[in-house]
């Protein structure tokens, strides 16, 4: 079994274990461990993890805090436990995913691996095109676009994306056919 697949399985087991922990200090320990092991990248990873969960966790926490205030009970035990758990799980995911090659970890199934490669390749194309479009738009317009202009922009982006990504994905499919992907069962 490859190192990447072992790491992914270890990560999944740890996630399962962490969702059975209800003591905040255990999650605080995972957060501290991730930050220590990440070294110089720790703060950047923590910021990224915070950004990823702040909308959902913040919304739920605010709703629960208001509910507790209205009902007259203390929400802090729940809020501490929930937010530490959510943050520790997300930070762990970000930290470990920097060390795992997801394509290698999931190559036990050619079908899954194929979809992952295609999807990630097209996402890169899409994000690059989107960035180019946005920069091109900004370079030509001083005022923010209207809704109608934004819709036109998305339509034009979609058309451009289709043309660009077709060439790339066709290359991938032909390469896979030449290696016998479509010839036999998984």
């Amino acid at each position, binding site marked *: 079994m490859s190192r990447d697949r072992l790491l992914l399985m270890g990560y999944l087991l740890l996630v399962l274990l962490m969702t059975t922990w*209800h003591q905040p200090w255990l999650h605080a320990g995972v957060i501290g461990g991730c930050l220590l092991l990440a070294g110089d990248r720790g703060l950047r990873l923590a910021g990224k993890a915070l950004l990823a969960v702040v909308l959902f966790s913040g*919304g739920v926490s605010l709703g629960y805090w208001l509910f507790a205030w209205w009902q007259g009970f203390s929400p802090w035990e729940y809020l501490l436990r929930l937010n530490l758990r959510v943050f520790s799980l*997300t930070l762990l995911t970000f930290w470990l995913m920097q060390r795992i090659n997801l394509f290698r970890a999931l190559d036990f199934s050619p079908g899954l691996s194929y979809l992952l490669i295609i999807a990630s*390749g*097209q*996402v890169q194309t899409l994000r690059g095109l989107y960035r180019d479009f946005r920069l091109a738009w900004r370079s030509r317009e001083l005022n923010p676009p209207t809704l109608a202009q934004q819709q036109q922009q998305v339509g034009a982006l979609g058309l451009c994306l289709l043309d660009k990504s077709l060439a790339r*994905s066709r290359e991938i499919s032909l390469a896979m056919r030449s290696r016998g992907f479509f010839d036999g069962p998984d």
Partner: protein
Amino acid sequence: MHIPDGFIAPQVYLPLYAVAGGCWAYALRRVRRVLDEDTIPLLALLTAFTFVLGMVALPLPGGTTAHATGVALLALLFGVWTAFLAFSVVLLMQALLFGDGGITSLPLNALAMGLAGGAAAVAGFRLLKNLREKLALFLAGWLAINVAALLMALALGLQPHVARDADGVPLFFPFGWQITLPAVMLPHLLVGLAEGALTLSLYRFAQGYLSREP
């Protein structure tokens, strides 16, 4: 609408993984019958498109978020199982690479949005396509969003019933169905309109591409 890690109890996500695992295995076997050199480019494009749509999360009252999914379009063009598999890959990438959604909420997100949403879209389209195709396409997108939202709301509202500590304090998502159903469903009645419009406008364009000679 993606739920991060830490909100779904193991009593819920482990059985859901068992169900989703069976569905993924079945979908993997089927997908190779559908994919060929002609359909691959469009599937790849729509998968990437779905990925980007899924990354843009709008906060909703009650703490959840809303997304256009594009899953109705995938299901109508490639079938429910292919859409489910492609959408699951998108969710996996979002959870592991971008922290949008989570690995413990993956089976719920995949089954609700990818499978149930896709199946609802196809069922709605087949039901109405002979009456009026434009309406059927629009309804397919609207149904995909709202069936998924309903299942999400039910699953979230289940959490305080299955996981509480000795004092009765919830261990995971704290609100019951009386809050999750209106908080999730009401905004998605509107979000579904955008998904319906998206499905309507892109389906014909995609069909045109599929029928084009290479």
